[in-house]
């Protein structure tokens, strides 16, 4: 995908670390940033897509294998980047996993898995990189939230919980970071990319129905990445996707949460009808 000219100018010479760049929105963001003039460090667990990012631009793209929940490994990676480049200008926290299922079927291990990647991973990234940004007095952080942090979502409680964490973190951090010249942006996609909804991640219900029910829209990760990058370069604080529908649900949850009840009941019904024997 082509990077818009305005995006290019503002990213020239920047060093950006992207977590979760092996799939979904993270991968799409990394692909869009590949030839933007920025030096990027896409991080993820081992994956073909991750390695293929550096094809043709191995000078500026450095795929890094990293388990973001492993703090010591993260420290090593951050130290290496700072030793080599001298700074990290941008941090994109795109890593995320989900588990879909009724409360009765979601076990302790599922909760720990989801909170481990979405919460601990993000905290590790911010705890290690944000202080270096504060010290330099500049930097950009993009957190991947979701509108379900505010609306809640039946059948995706661990994911909603982890995104709630990101929302609270974002709101508080934003007020602080502006004092230190660091800008913090929150992306609020209103849909699950297909990568998030792999079959093994759905513990109850029929995957096709669940996927249909849990998406505000059917679109590609590339389109989301495009909207996010544009918003980021314009200095937006919250980036909704799809821009109108997601914002509409967000406001609804904010002002009249009870209006979302019928929607949630429908989700719940979907699980019950399609419950696998």
């Amino acid at each position, binding site marked *: 995908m082509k990077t818009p000219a305005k995006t290019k100018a503002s990213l020239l010479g920047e060093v950006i670390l992207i977590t979760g760049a092996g799939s979904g929105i993270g991968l799409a963001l990394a692909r869009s940033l590949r030839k933007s003039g920025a030096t990027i460090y896409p991080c993820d667990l081992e994956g073909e897509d991750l390695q293929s990012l550096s094809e043709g631009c191995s000078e500026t793209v450095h795929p890094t294998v990293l388990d973001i929940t492993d703090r010591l490994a993260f420290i090593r990676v951050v130290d290496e980047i700072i030793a080599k480049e001298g700074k990290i200008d941008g941090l994109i926290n795109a890593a995320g996993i989900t588990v879909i299922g009724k409360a009765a079927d*979601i076990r302790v291990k599922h909760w720990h898995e989801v909170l481990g990647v979405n919460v601990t991973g993000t905290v590790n990234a911010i705890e290690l990189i944000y202080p270096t940004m504060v010290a330099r007095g500049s930097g950009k952080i993009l957190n991947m939230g979701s509108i379900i942090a505010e609306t809640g979502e039946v059948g995706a409680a661990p994911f909603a919980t982890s995104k709630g964490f990101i929302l609270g973190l974002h709101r508080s951090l*934003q*007020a602080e970071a502006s004092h230190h010249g660091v800008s913090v942006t929150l992306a609020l996609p209103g849909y699950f990319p297909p990568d998030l909804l792999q079959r093994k991640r759905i513990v109850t219900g029929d995957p096709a129905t669940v996927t249909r029910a849990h998406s505000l829209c059917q679109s590609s990760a590339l389109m989301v990445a495009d909207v996010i990058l544009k918003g980021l370069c314009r200095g937006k604080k919250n980036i909704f996707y799809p821009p109108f529908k997601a914002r509409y649900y967000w406001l609804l949850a904010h002002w009249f949460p009870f209006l979302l009840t019928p929607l949630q009941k429908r989700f719940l019904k979907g699980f019950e009808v399609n419950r696998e024997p």
Partner: protein
Amino acid sequence: MAEVIVITGANSGIGKEIALTLAGPGRHFFLLARRVPELEKVATALRETGAQATVRPIDLRREHAWPGFFDELAAQDIRIDQVYHCAVRMSVGAVHNTTAGDWEEIYRVNLLTAADILATVFPEMIARSTGRVVLFGSISVNSGYPMATPYCATKTAIHAAWRSLLPEAKRSGVGLHYVSPGFVDTPLFENFILRGVTRQQTRQCALSLRVPISSPRRVATTIVRKIERGKTFVVTPNSIRLLIFIFRHIPSTSRRYFGQMFRSLGVEK
């Protein structure tokens, strides 16, 4: 068979007062907290009212103790009827001064324990179509809380969990309650993890915000009364209700509050 009530953070503050409010014959309390002497005192007070009380020292900051505790009760064929997750940890200080250890501690006590409760007791309650889980949030859920980011993040997460699970709880007749207390005079304020700020500054900050500070006993009584009436979203005291409304719907007002907060904590622009 006695009604089994589990309370985390039962040695002081809201947890202790909730235990004392609920005390009475026919109830069996499991009190979970770190400091045993205080816990024993609460247990003695409960026993005097005719209730049974079992003290369980657990350091939720470090141990990953909850699933083990739940399994242990299940093995003894004890079914939990009510859970109150009152244990809480909070730090005051800028994010760049907050250490990995602080994040870990706050995450484990506030959020991971709540998640464990929702993953173990809650499904079992749904299967039985009875029971009650009470989670504690905060007014910061509505606006963010700079200088206490880990606390705010974990509380916002609890709010999201409550909203996601409420329809399922309602359908099966399980009570899933979210409580948003205002500023309560609890030892939480004495046990802050302080990073780059002094206790004196934090106290001044709390005073400068001019938020009414209520007593834990009154708050606990209101919470229990409202929960027993079946309210799933409990805000107490009532004056906080207005504050929440303003923070939620006019975000710029919270910014003014934050400015005041930064000034009294000595954070320069």
